[in-house]
């Protein structure tokens, strides 16, 4: 198992949390965490691992900070 510090941004926080340390199997990918948290995929826009842009298929390691942000689409 590994511990991941998960930060949610914007509407993802509603009914969930702002920031939480969660435990996942050591082979978990970003995708698995998105699924576990039941985040709407069509709104998920930006994934950051330790502050760097990443993708849903990227793997994680113990102690990583994962930020999940909604899309950014103009103003």
């Amino acid at each position, binding site marked *: 198992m590994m511990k991941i510090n998960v930060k949610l941004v*914007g509407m993802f926080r509603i009914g969930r949390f702002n920031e939480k340390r969660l435990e996942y199997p050591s082979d978990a990918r970003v995708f698995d965490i998105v699924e576990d948290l039941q985040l709407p995929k*069509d*709104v998920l826009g*930006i994934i950051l691992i330790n*502050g*760097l842009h990443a993708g849903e298929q990227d793997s994680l390691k113990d102690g990583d900070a994962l930020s999940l942000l909604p899309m*950014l*689409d*103009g*103003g």
Partner: protein
Amino acid sequence: MRFLTTDPAAESSNILYKRCTIDLRTVEQRMEETPCRNLEDVLGGFGRSFQDLARRQINNAYCDENPLIVNTGLLTGSSAMTGMRTYFSGYSPIKGSKAGLPAAMWSTGSGKFGAKFKWTGLDELIFENRSEQPVYVVIKETDAGPQVELKPAERLLGLSTHDKIMALQKDYPDAHFAAIGQAGENWQNNFMGAVALSTENQLKEKEDKCRFAGRGGMGSLMGYKNILALVAQSSDKLKPLSEAVKKVNLNVVKGGGSARIQPISRGGGGGTWAAYDVLQEFHAVPVNNFRPQGNAIPEKLFRENVEKEYDIKSQACYRCGITCHNNISEKNADGSKGEFLAKFDYEPLNLLGTNIGIHDAGQAARLIQLSDNYGMDAISLGATISYALSYNERHPQKTFLNGATFGDYEKIHELIIQAGEGKLPEIGQGSMRLSQSLNETCYAYHVKGLEIPAYQPETNPGYAWAIAGGHMSMGTYGLLTREGKSDLDSWVKGITEDKLHIVGFDMIGLCKFFDIAKGIGTQMVVDCLKSEFDLDVSIDNIRAAVRRSFLRGLALELRQGYTKAEFCLPAEVFENPNQNIKLPNITSPEFIEKLEKRVWEIFEPELEGLLNA
């Protein structure tokens, strides 16, 4: 429009659009069916108007030879969702080269005016010269075709955008309206006048819920011509929804493109306001004249903090399922909705909020409302005020104007009123002129004379090639922040291939949220054109027409005296890099130099001959 072919790319001259040209001085008018020159003409909007503007050499925006072109796009007033756009084009009073020549410009907004205008049977209205007396213009559907009439408008003088619309609605209850505010009336001292477009919500609820064609001072040009308002009077003419368009509309609402914009109650992100939360993660929300401080101050205007004290209601444009508006109203003591204040979109909220040191939602809403009522472009106004506040912060012993500084609500409020009433040309003429007059240009946040929107320039070197202001005519504002692209190849490709296609929406009559990521060169648009008009056009042909139109805009900028050195970001970005922004640095002088070289190598050969077409 009249279609004598099904192939708009190969046989564009067999498609005719209805154009009325009015000489405001003589009141003579010419109504004609005009054959399209190319696919850009068929698609409409700036794709057509820029070809006409290219035929005129204009040295001063406020001259009789500068036309105001009002037109729509092919899908304006169609059953395709978001097909509500009206376009206003002309040479801009505010955007201009250092050589002193005005840039060609267009501005667009939704609301129902565009559809009503189209349903009168008219596709384009060109105003030549200027009227000696204030007038409003009635465009009317009749059995004999569209009719255009000028009416005396003295009684509308001095009214706000909303009040003009309310006054006209009494006389034309079945119409929709486009109106300027006092800012446009005071065009001599205010170059950032916007055109307000009426909405169904506004007319029904009598609240100031206009949409705006804000950028580039088209409302000031309208004011120069002494046109205070346009009235489009027609019956509604929506076709029955075909299966094909129904499928497209469903995709617009349910597809990924508009998901973030949908209300939170429907699982969406809650409108463009949500950009606050996303950009704050990178400390890239503009603060105090585009200088993010690396702290939590922008969070005060996060939705979750505002909704504790204010009522927030989602609303939509006519027939639009995206529902992107977030209307902010006072909350009564019993929790019910109180007085309507303003609509919170990301740009006005930031530029008349956090970026001028205003962190109270009620105060920001009042300033947005003021800007809207006077009919000013919130982006140009906010960014010019933030420049002035920054000047005063840097010169505490020698402040100018009323000495306002960041966060000084009362004094900022006063500046906006004075600018709107034409009593403050320092603000009304924009940040380029103001910074030149004060001889401190490096922290004036404009590109090519037009103020930038609320995306930090450090995150978007693509601003330099935007042809009609900031992010909405060059969609690279999310390339670093959203997509994480910081390499040269991605930026060259973004600017020269993918992201310029955002301007297609400013041709065809659709809002960008129809499919902001992909533009109009998509099967969805192909299906709509087939279903609505029986037109067969390929994705490649649409994309080629959009590209030609974009490049024509660039060619026009160069013809109007812009040097390549003017295609640049505000100097402060390089002279005093902001270390608080948590993103890779893509605005080092070395990166920019390489980017400029490669972008121009691609664009320049394609500019040849575009203005002679």
